């Protein structure tokens, strides 16, 4: 019953269901058309990718077919049995998880400080953090390469995880600060009067209160670390190579292996789809960085 704009004032005493059926009918259809067209536009390229991943290369190159004539799972089987393929997934997930844990752990106290206190240079510091979220990775690719080679982290998941902190920590601080500002100060004060020490209050009382915010921030760290490739590719060669970079292997002497490329692409979508499902109810608020 939030959809009440067009409902005439005279109908205010009708039952909600009846009002919806009687008045909102034609307008809802317009919305449905827009939404359906948009979702169709979003799904078409993905459908094509899935379609291709289930075909043999012969079928792909011999003409356009809207669905696989002979469904084959060979492409997927090869990815899951060949170590050089599936290790790419393990590498990617490793640095993404390290990065998410690092970002959240570091960002939590900082976000609390920004949401509760004024301190020397707080505005400037916040702006400086924000600029790092906006800095183009292309600028950092070469210096990062030098830096992590010099300290011996090159080609390890840690190099990528630390590099991704550059844009994920500012983002996490930003989101968490938004959510924390929604928690009234009185809670902090009451806890202090009740004799809670700060760390105990923070972990026992405060963190459960902003649990959804932490979930959303973790989701965004996961997301931006998972989709970034320029830095991840520059900082790895063999041992920590991410799956998205492994995909370029499908260009071989015998031409493109389209089926494999498509199957690997489909598998990179799956982790994202899984995490969206868990945060679907908070996702909109999260995209607004906790500030609506």
């Amino acid at each position, binding site marked *: 019953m939030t959809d009440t704009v067009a409902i005439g004032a005279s109908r205010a005493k009708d039952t909600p269901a009846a009002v919806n059926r009687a008045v909102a009918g034609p307008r809802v259809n317009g919305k449905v058309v827009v939404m359906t067209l948009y979702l169709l536009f979003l799904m078409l390229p993905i459908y094509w990718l899935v379609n291709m991943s289930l075909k043999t290369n012969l079928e792909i190159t011999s003409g356009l077919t809207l669905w696989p004539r002979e469904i084959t799972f060979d492409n997927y089987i090869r990815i899951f049995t060949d170590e050089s393929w599936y290790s790419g997934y393990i590498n990617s997930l490793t640095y993404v998880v390290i990065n998410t844990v690092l970002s959240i752990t570091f960002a939590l106290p900082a976000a609390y400080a920004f949401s509760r206190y004024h301190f020397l240079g707080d505005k400037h510091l916040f702006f400086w953090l924000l600029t790092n979220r906006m800095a183009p990775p292309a600028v950092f690719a070469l210096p990062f390469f030098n830096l992590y080679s010099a300290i011996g982290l090159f080609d390890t998941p840690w190099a990528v995880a630390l590099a991704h902190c550059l844009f994920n920590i500012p983002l996490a601080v930003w989101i968490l600060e938004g959510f924390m500002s929604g928690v009234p100060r009185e809670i902090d004060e009451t806890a202090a009067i009740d004799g809670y020490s700060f760390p105990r209050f923070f972990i026992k009382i405060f963190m459960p209160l902003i649990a959804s915010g932490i979930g959303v921030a973790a989701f965004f760290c996961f997301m931006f670390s998972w989709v970034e490739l320029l830095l991840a590719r520059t900082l790895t060669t063999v041992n920590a190579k991410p799956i998205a970079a492994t*995909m370029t292997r499908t260009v071989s002497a015998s031409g493109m292996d389209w089926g494999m490329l498509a199957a690997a692409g489909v598998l990179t979508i799956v982790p994202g789809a899984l995490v969206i499902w868990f945060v679907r109810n908070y996702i909109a608020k999260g995209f607004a960085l906790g500030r609506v």
Partner: protein
Amino acid sequence: MNKTLNHKAWFLVLPVFALVAFSAVVPLMTVVNYSVQDTFGNNQFFWNGVGWFAELLDPSRELGGRFFDALWRTLLFSAIILAIEIPLGIAVALAMPREGWTVALCLVLMALPLLIPWNVVGTIWQVFARGDIGLLGWVVNHLGIDYNYTGHSLDAWVTIIVMDVWHWTSLVALLCYAGLKSIPDAYYQAARIDGASRWAVFRTIQLPKMRRVLLIAVLLRFMDSFMIYTEPFVLTGGGPGNATTFLSIDLVKLALGQFDLGKAAAMSIVYNLIILAICWVFYTVMTNVDADRERVEA
């Protein structure tokens, strides 16, 4: 919320400060270092002063011409992206269902493109838009339009723009949806009693309430399109010719392709300064909007 003054809060911020300084300031100093030196290989460097900057900012020189071409291209791209994605995102947000299981379905499907690695996005469209094995390219070609994104620069631009709309419009839509959800029912009921038209409701209730999130949307979309790299690199590689060579692509070519460290570093710094300036404008506007809002609410 009124905050208390407490300089000890710095201790809470210190870990973040140290970590981000390590991964931002140290590399940035390397860039500054390179930008004022020249090298003839062998790791020997010579002081070059502002030589690279002078060359970079002079459109009549080869480096400068290349830089400004890429800059205008990137700005044009960002402008087109904002002009399409912001209105479309608002329209999609207004079309979102308000309740029921379809809400979750729409949210998940809309967020899906955002979670795809950026080079996979490039790959998906590379395949999808091909004339021989891609659905889009095949259909367009069979409609009698001569479409080939690797051959014609206009086609390459259209493909990249459609790809970006596909990839990022959902971000704008989700932000606007979050803004719309925060409008209390009472506002709509008041509008209904006043007999406000659909357009009036949008202009006077929905748009002002979305101002804050729209600002974030414009900021994020502008920044991300201004530093776009992976998707066009995979799709067109900057071609045909230099038609889609945006600033990041040019920079990476210069730095990691030709290892022209001095020129690349000078370009990085100017690029970064542009972003810093734009970011500052947005930040100032945003803080002012917040201040306004707090004054209204108080």
